[in-house]
């Protein structure tokens, strides 16, 4: 009888990185299905290419740098799928593959792999694609079910507010990126992640609320501001990325509030109709500074230590 002498604790939670990532993938499915439903076969190809090229890029990177290949933890698949859902269905597939590779190798791999990156890989890749090929990134399909093959440049709710009824905004029968249009699918995914405790409510709720408040302050209709563009998708799936948001609860609230402010400012003043990508990226960059200043009080430290 060979006794195992590994140290305490001897029991572990049954959650693992793989189960967490699997929960996120499940949460993303409704958005993917809705996206393909609205934008047809091209959208499906975009999602498939983005997910598989992310996984392939991670596999090659880890093999090339002689690390243990951990593609099984599904983190590359999540990054790929989220990036795919962030792109218009008209996106050329070679561009999608480059975006996924950039996300997995440059933004994550070069910094040391899972958990070591300081900005959200999918978001950085989307920003890189927008900077490199703006012409491909701003062509939107009019949603016409599976038949939608011809790329027609129509205005999105952001570039022509008021052009769509609120119901359309919610159902998602509006032009936009593959994953961000159907709000119900996003909320379904959010509910699943809350139920499986994959993410906390703090960041998405505070970010959406703050965007609404500041949009109102800047004179936009808060409801359309919340329901249009990538806000809901960004707040639920991208701002809550573990490695890139602050560690403490208060820090996360400050992070989400500032992100909401930035979304409103960018949408109001800058050329880009969509501010969510840059707002979250900027807050990812600022999150280490937030973590530096907003820390938890350690038991027995500070003035409360003596008599409670």
């Amino acid at each position, binding site marked *: *009888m060979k*006794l*195992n*002498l*590994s*140290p*305490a*604790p*001897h*029991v*572990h*939670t049954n*959650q*693992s*990185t793989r*189960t*967490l990532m699997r929960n996120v993938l499940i949460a993303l499915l409704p958005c993917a299905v809705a996206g393909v439903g609205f934008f047809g076969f091209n959208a499906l190809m975009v999602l498939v290419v983005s997910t598989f090229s992310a996984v392939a890029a991670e596999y090659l990177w880890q093999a090339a740098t002689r690390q243990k290949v*951990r593609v099984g*933890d599904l*983190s590359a698949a999540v990054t790929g799928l989220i990036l795919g859902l962030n792109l218009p269905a008209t996106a050329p597939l070679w561009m999608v593959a480059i975006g996924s590779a950039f996300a997995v190798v440059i933004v994550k791999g070069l910094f040391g*792999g*899972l*958990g*070591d990156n300081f900005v959200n890989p999918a978001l950085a890749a989307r920003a890189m694609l927008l900077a490199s090929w703006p012409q491909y990134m701003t062509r939107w399909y009019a949603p016409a079910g599976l038949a939608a093959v011809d790329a027609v440049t129509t205005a999105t709710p952001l570039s022509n507010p008021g052009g769509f009824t609120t119901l359309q905004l919610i159902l998602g029968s509006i032009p936009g990126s593959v994953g961000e249009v159907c709000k119900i699918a996003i909320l379904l995914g959010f509910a699943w992640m809350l139920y499986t405790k994959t993410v906390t409510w703090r960041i998405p709720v505070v970010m959406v609320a703050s965007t609404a408040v500041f949009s109102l302050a800047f004179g936009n209709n808060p409801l359309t501001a919340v329901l249009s563009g990538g806000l809901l998708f960004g707040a639920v799936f991208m701002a809550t990325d*573990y*490695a890139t948001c602050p*560690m*403490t609860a208060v820090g996360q609230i400050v992070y989400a509030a500032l992100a909401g402010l930035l979304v409103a400012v960018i949408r109001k003043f800058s050329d880009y109709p969509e501010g969510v990508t840059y707002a979250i990226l900027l807050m990812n960059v600022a999150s280490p500074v937030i973590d530096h200043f907003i*820390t*938890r*009080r*350690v*038991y*027995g*430290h500070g003035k*409360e*230590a*003596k*008599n*409670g």
Partner: protein
Amino acid sequence: MANNRTFRGGVHPLHEAHEGKSPTSGVATRDFNAKAVSIMMGMHLGAPSTPCVQPGDHVKLGQVIGEPVGFLGLPVHASVSGEVLEVGPVQSVNNPAAMAVTIKNDFKDEWVELHPLGDVETCPVDQIVPAIKAAGICGMGGAAFPTHVKFAVKEGQYCDTIILNGAECETHLTCDHRLMLEKSGRIVDGLRAAMRALNVKRGVIAIEDNKPDAIEAMTKAAQGRNGVEVMPLQTKYPQGGEKQLIHVVTGREVPTKKLPLDVHVIVLNVGTAYAIADAVIEGKPLVSRITTITGKVKKPSNLRIRVGTRVEDLIAECGGFSMDREHVGKIVLGGAMTGFPAPTTRVPLAKANNGVVVYCAKESVEPEETPCIRCGRCVDACPIGLVPFKLKFMCEADDMQAASANNIMDCVVCGSCSYICPAHRVLTSAFKAMKDKIAAEAKKGKG
């Protein structure tokens, strides 16, 4: 009754399996007298005692077989009457050569001459602490800190509350639970003795609300005893930790690098209080305790065992392994969160060992350590408010300055972070190693 008394952080290990306690929480305690015991000299925190018997001597139950050494020294008593077989090193849980006295049990249980002090409410106050030292009593919760030293209140210090730790937040263990059900009166006696010895007005017995029957029993026993109250707490690990108990019961926080006495509180395990009552009322030394034997054994049970009983005898008493011997993966002395893995079944139990848990091979396979995804679950779980994943990076980089600057010395090594980590990273034992290293460095620097 909704009970919101709890602390920040913490985890719920094996919550779905009633903290792994269901097999033994309803099983009454029964005595078990092994055929031989190996009583170790270093069962308490502090220098091990020196044996004062030779092989061949005949010893009575309760006879001193080890003289105390140093300030933290405690006498060691024979837990059975019989003939001394051997005085030499034995394999213990964390020390391959622990000096021990092995005694063959003659099952007569012939007590040595005892000097009881009488009833706890009327006995002379100044003799209580010497009696505790003479009885060789140390913390039974797991720390094994000599109780008489804990009671040594320096001048300028005072104690206004004694907390009895009945939380038993560890998994699998039900020894305190059974003790509170079966010996509630004697526990309150022990608490009263301690309160009188230190002139303390308030005694609080803290019990987690997953043991309602124990709460009821102790409340009934505490009726009419002045200054004694029972406080139910929310079930969450590590509620039984000294710092967490003090914070929840009195609202005070022990300042860093300080002791509970600096916030005028002393924390005792219910088992220790019971031992104090034995020492005061019947003059008996600490020779036996209740231990939970559970996990992959045929008949999981709570046994009142003699100090020094070997693991193999305990398992035999519980009907042996409930599976093929080869499939046993791990035998842990203590609960799943802080227990020590036993290298062999010949390891004897010490005063502070409150459980023996047998795991099958599948349960004891260490999950592979994968990269940290910075999910922050360990930060939420840490009851002390540290940032475990960052400390782990510092331990990996062997950066002692950074680790101390980030308060690693405040870590109470409770295991919550390693338990909750989805990437199964080895955190708690890395912090333990780093803490020992920093302590050794400090001692070397000072020495």
